[in-house]
């Protein structure tokens, strides 16, 4: 899994690749995201490509959130498609994460 990233000031945007973020990809994601979490404090995940998210993908995002929170960082999600947003709602993510409609909104909030 190649993670495309854009850095604006102190905020790094991770553009999630592929159309799905599911169990089969989670170990690879964890391996690739670890240095990003290590080196940054404010991370936004752009989910615009993702059409399907499962519980393992949710767990991986939660793990990132916990690690960033431990070092007083922030994590946000943006550009989620309708089905992914619905899964966030089922999981209760909006109570925990900052969820933004657009990348611009996310950047404005975190900059």
């Amino acid at each position: 899994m190649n993670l495309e990233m854009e850095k604006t000031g102190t905020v790094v945007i991770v553009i999630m690749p592929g159309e799905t973020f599911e169990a089969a990809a989670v170990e690879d994601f964890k391996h690739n995201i670890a240095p990003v979490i290590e080196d940054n404090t404010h991370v936004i995940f752009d989910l615009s490509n993702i059409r399907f998210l499962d519980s393992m993908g949710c767990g991986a995002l939660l793990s990132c959130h916990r690690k960033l929170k431990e070092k007083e960082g922030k994590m946000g999600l943006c550009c989620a498609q309708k089905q992914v947003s619905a899964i966030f709602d089922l999981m209760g993510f909006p109570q925990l994460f900052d969820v933004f409609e657009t990348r611009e909104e996310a950047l404005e909030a975190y900059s």
Partner: protein
Amino acid sequence: MPQSIHRIEIQSQLENLPGARLFVRKFCQKDPCQRLAGEDLWQLELAVHEAATNIIRHAYGNRTDQRILIEIEAFEERLMVHLNHWGKPFVQRGSVSPPVLDGTSKSGFGLYLIERCVDRVRYECTPTGKNIISLLKYRTRVTPPQGPPGRPFKQKGDF
């Protein structure tokens, strides 16, 4: 009696789960009865995906050479999906609590999503060693019974 039954067998590999979801989607799109669509369709796909993931990870302990037989039965008012496996059986729980979102919990999210996405879940062990996870999805929304959403049935007759 179901109006139609379709089956697919996959090997116990996470990479095969998109194929299982596609099987569910195609069945529902061709279903001669009232079609399941939109939110109900992806919820059923997600529940099947999560149940199959649990079978691969927990029942088969991530072994990749085992069988999962998925059967869909179409009834006039509901769809039933049975996931058959020959691994370690799951224990029926009374209810599944909402996930703990503080990042300390690494499991249980799948069970919770399954229970939120379908109307009933049943775990069954047979004397021959085959275990079955059965998911029921009504074609039209029903008011859930008292208790947590997706409260599992305890008796076969409840299906």
